[in-house]
């Protein structure tokens, strides 16, 4: 191959920029890493498809766990125990130890960046109690979650963005990253991106690249995730030959508004609200006679799915159940649940003080993702080594699988994850760049292919293909429906295997997608087509991993295999386009303390 390839006129106009680090995604994980790197005087480019402060981190209301012991006695080792147990023993204990030990420092750092944490009267940071937290390895309830009122994510995101502006991070706002670039030796060396405003393509060459693109909740019809959560980094990793890890573990919240997705907090049932099926029965009496509507999330989610599947749903399509709270009276509802009331009135035209709320389990959090070690390096199996780093490539946050959440994430651990591992990735990048001072040569052939890919939807209107033309909106709708029906909270062999076939069929139909907007100005149809490609890749990995895992662990719950099977399945799933399914062991050895051996997960 020629060292100086000829450029065609289209490529001649393509701008090339060079940076030490390219970060794709500007949520909490990406911005935390960017800040650390910019402060180390490295040149950092952050590419974000939306304006950075419109990243999904803004929606994280709950808070961030750290064993500060400001309210009740606490220490990081108890936090570690809770996280390992919460993960249903699928979490990697070295990464969990690292995260829990780093948590207090991560909170203090945020405080110095300007995050206004809520305070106790004595001036210390206030900490609230959250589910799954204990003192003394499973004892009394702990108080571990630090919060900035009910807008913690918003406060963190805005503070980090301001700090990055101060540190002179270079932002490419409203740019879309298409695919990763590589060198001949397999190093990852940046990405091809385009400006959503005018379609202009740009090659960003970088010595190191960090994927921080968030989760993939848009896989499912009913989700709490914003429209931007299309698993872009996961799709890019898959196309670069990297497997996705533990994708069968997707956290669902039992009560989302049916057909819309937004969350109705557990607090509603805590106040005395209860679920009713199409026959007017209190359905939870059948599934959890004691705890009833306060049973754990997965039990309630599965109960709702079973009722609907067995024809006891509500509404003309019998596709939801009802959450009844009108018996609490208008005064109580207005006083204790004003936000919920407002949400229902705005999105459903229903006042829960007068009528019940239609609900359905809603997809909330992607536990799986791009496999990394605790330094944020993306790791893949090579021959007998299960975790060989991919040179130059890092991932952090919800798109990554470190794995600290394992089979199920604890409330308050997701903000902690993005901040701790965003920072850890930056630390490793700084070290790596001391050894790797110069830009490596791109594989120009591979770059050409990616540039072509970036142009692929430019001219598809009115094609003359004899095959059926598919629309992005149509295929996306089908994909979300298939994933909800076949890979939601109700899983068994038959349903999952049908799902595998249906997802594979949708992937084949993707090649017939045509978009009817060939303009270069704000061509959002083109962006949506690329997003759908990413969702398709994530869907393939998710459904295959779920169909293969014959046990129930954490959020992956099989009707036909109701028990956890540590002997056969205490291992991570890996799914790649090239090799299909593969597995690797869980890292059960922590950094400095004794392992927590698997025990039944009882709360």
């Amino acid at each position, binding site marked *: 191959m020629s060292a100086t390839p000829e450029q065609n006129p289209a490529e001649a106009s393509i701008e090339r920029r060079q940076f030490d680090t390219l970060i794709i995604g500007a949520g909490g994980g990406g911005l935390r890493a960017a800040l650390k790197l910019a402060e180390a005087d490295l040149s950092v480019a952050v590419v974000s498809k939306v304006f950075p402060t419109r*990243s999904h981190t803004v929606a994280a209301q709950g808070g961030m766990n750290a064993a500060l012991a400001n309210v009740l006695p606490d220490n990081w080792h108890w936090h570690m125990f809770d996280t390992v147990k919460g993960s249903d023993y699928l979490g990697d204990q070295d990464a969990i130890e690292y995260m829990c030990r780093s948590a207090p420092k991560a909170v203090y750092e945020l405080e110095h960046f300007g995050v206004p944490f809520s305070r106790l009267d004595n001036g210390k940071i206030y900490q609230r109690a959250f589910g799954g937290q204990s003192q003394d390895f499973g004892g009394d309830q702990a108080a571990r979650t630090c919060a900035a009122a009910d807008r913690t994510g918003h406060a963190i995101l805005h503070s980090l963005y301001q700090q990055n502006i101060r540190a002179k991070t270079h932002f490419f706002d409203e740019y879309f990253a298409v695919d990763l670039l590589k060198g001949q030796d397999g190093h990852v060396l940046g990405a091809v991106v385009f400006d*959503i405003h005018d379609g202009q393509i740009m090659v960003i060459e970088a010595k190191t690249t960090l994927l921080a693109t968030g989760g993939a909740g848009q896989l499912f019809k009913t989700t709490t995730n914003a429209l931007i959560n299309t698993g872009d980094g996961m799709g890019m990793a898959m196309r670069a030959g990297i497997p996705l890890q533990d994708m069968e573990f997707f956290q669902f919240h039992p009560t989302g508004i049916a057909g819309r997705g937004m969350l109705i907090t557990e607090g509603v049932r805590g106040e005395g609200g209860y679920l009713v099926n199409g026959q007017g029965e209190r359905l939870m009496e059948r599934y959890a006679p004691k705890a009833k509507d306060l049973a754990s999330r997965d039990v309630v989610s599965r109960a709702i799915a079973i009722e609907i599947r067995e024809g006891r749903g509500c509404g003309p399509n019998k596709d939801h159940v009802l959450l009844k709270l009108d018996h609490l009276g208008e005064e109580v509802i207005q006083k204790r649940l004003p936000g919920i009331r407002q949400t229902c009135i705005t999105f459903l035209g229903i006042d829960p003080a007068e009528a019940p709320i239609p609900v359905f389990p809603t997809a909330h959090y992607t536990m799986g993702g791009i496999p990394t070690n605790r330094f944020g390096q993306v790791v893949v199996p090579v021959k007998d080594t299960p975790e060989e780093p991919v040179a130059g490539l890092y991932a952090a946050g919800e798109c990554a699988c470190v794995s600290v959440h394992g089979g199920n994430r604890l409330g308050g651990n997701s903000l902690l994850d993005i901040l701790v591992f965003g920072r850890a990735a930056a630390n490793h990048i700084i070290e790596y760049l001391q050894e790797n001072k110069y830009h490596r040569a791109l594989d120009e052939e591979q770059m050409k292919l990616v540039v072509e890919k970036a142009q692929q939807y430019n001219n598809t209107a009115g094609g003359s293909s004899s095959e059926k033309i598919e629309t992005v909106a149509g295929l996306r709708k089908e994909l979300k429906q298939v994933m909800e029906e076949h890979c939601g909270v109700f899983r068994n062999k038959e349903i999952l295997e049908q799902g595998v076939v249906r997802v594979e069929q949708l992937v084949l139909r993707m090649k017939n997608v045509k978009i009817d907007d060939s303009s270069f100005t704000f061509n959002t149809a083109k962006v949506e087509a690329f997003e759908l490609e990413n969702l398709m890749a994530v869907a393939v990995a998710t459904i295959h991993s779920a169909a293969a895992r014959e046990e129930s662990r954490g959020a992956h719950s099989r009707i036909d295999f109701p028990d956890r099977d540590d002997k056969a399945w205490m291992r991570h799933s890996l799914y790649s386009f090239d090799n299909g399914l593969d597995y690797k062991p869980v890292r059960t050895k922590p950094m400095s303390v004794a392992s927590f051996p698997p025990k039944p997960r009882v709360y």
Partner: protein
Amino acid sequence: MTAEQTNYRWQCRRGMLELDLLLNNFVDKKASALSMEQAAVFEMLLSYPDQTLFDLLLGNSVSSDRRASALIEQIRSTPFD
């Protein structure tokens, strides 16, 4: 889709699902009929931080700008399919 709608479309991609749904529904159904003045107010609203917009659109807070509060009411009351 009109030029205004495509321009708005990406600004309606937000960090919160609630905002995505309310803003996109409004753009789908009402944006092409906005007056020049209303369009300017809509653009101003889109420039607000997500949390501020969330509080305004979900009725947790009220804008002191009468033109803004009128448009917010219009967004809130645009029916979903």
